[in-house]
């Protein structure tokens, strides 16, 4: 039931922008809770790496006096990986195209993260 609700949030998020290619919700210990990922991607790897990066980002922001973490953004030449907390115990990870308009995606992801935190 909860997994269906989380998948529905991801489905809505992926549909909100043609630039969003995939998304997933992961527990903070790296276990996949729901995912809409290409079949070529290993869910376990995406889950563990997303949670690890967000933990490191969180710690880095605190250590370097940047306040509470809002998001971690990775830019590669083929696109973006955006990670943000969805409540205290989950991570929302989004893969976006390289030409994506990040401002709009940030808004959609923030909204989706709030929805996820209400479900969890």
């Amino acid at each position, binding site marked *: 039931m909860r997994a269906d609700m989380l998948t529905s949030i991801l489905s809505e998020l992926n549909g909100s922008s043609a630039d969003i290619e995939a998304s997933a919700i992961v527990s903070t210990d790296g276990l996949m809770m729901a995912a809409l990922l290409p079949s070529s991607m290993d869910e*376990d*790897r995406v889950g563990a790496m997303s949670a690890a990066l967000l933990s*490191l980002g*969180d710690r880095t922001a605190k250590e370097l006096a940047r306040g509470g973490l809002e998001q971690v953004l990775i830019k590669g030449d083929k696109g973006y990986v955006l990670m943000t907390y969805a409540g205290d115990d989950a991570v929302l990870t989004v893969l976006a195209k390289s030409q994506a308009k990040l401002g709009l995606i940030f808004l959609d992801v923030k909204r989706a993260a709030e929805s996820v935190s209400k479900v969890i």
Partner: protein
Amino acid sequence: MNLDHIALFKHVNGFTDADSAAVQAVSSILVTIAPQLTDEFYDQLVSHPETNKHIEGRLDALKATHRQWMTELFTGPHDETFFARQEIIGVVHVKVKIPPLFVSSSMSFLRHEVVHMLHAKAESGELTCEQFEAASSAILRLLDLCQMLIDTAYEAERLRLLSEVTGMKLRLIENLIALN
């Protein structure tokens, strides 16, 4: 302390209550080798610049701690309190930044030397052949058990420190390790 792990280790390596009894039966003789064993052990560590770095200025205190550990090893009881102390030794070694390599090489040295010294006791007639065989076999198993507990504590403490520094939960670190 994971008692199931200790039980499994003892089952595989063969350390039993009879081994513990064999050590304790000749403990009065065994404790007499503790000072010499400790001195030879630290002579070995002092003789290499890498290990000596961790000893300089603390030699007497370290020797006293080592003699006490040897005495506990030789007198027992080899119970939960004894096992818990081995884990604490591991944690302390991590805290003072002793590399794991030093622990395993030190244990190797002790295994060799303890048998060598007990053999000398047998040759001098202080130990019978049977006592030498039973005690040296039991002490070797016991040292292996100690090293397993120290190594396990080492690994746990290093993961805990990694978790503390990175903010990653221990479960997450284990999940990352399991990816390969």
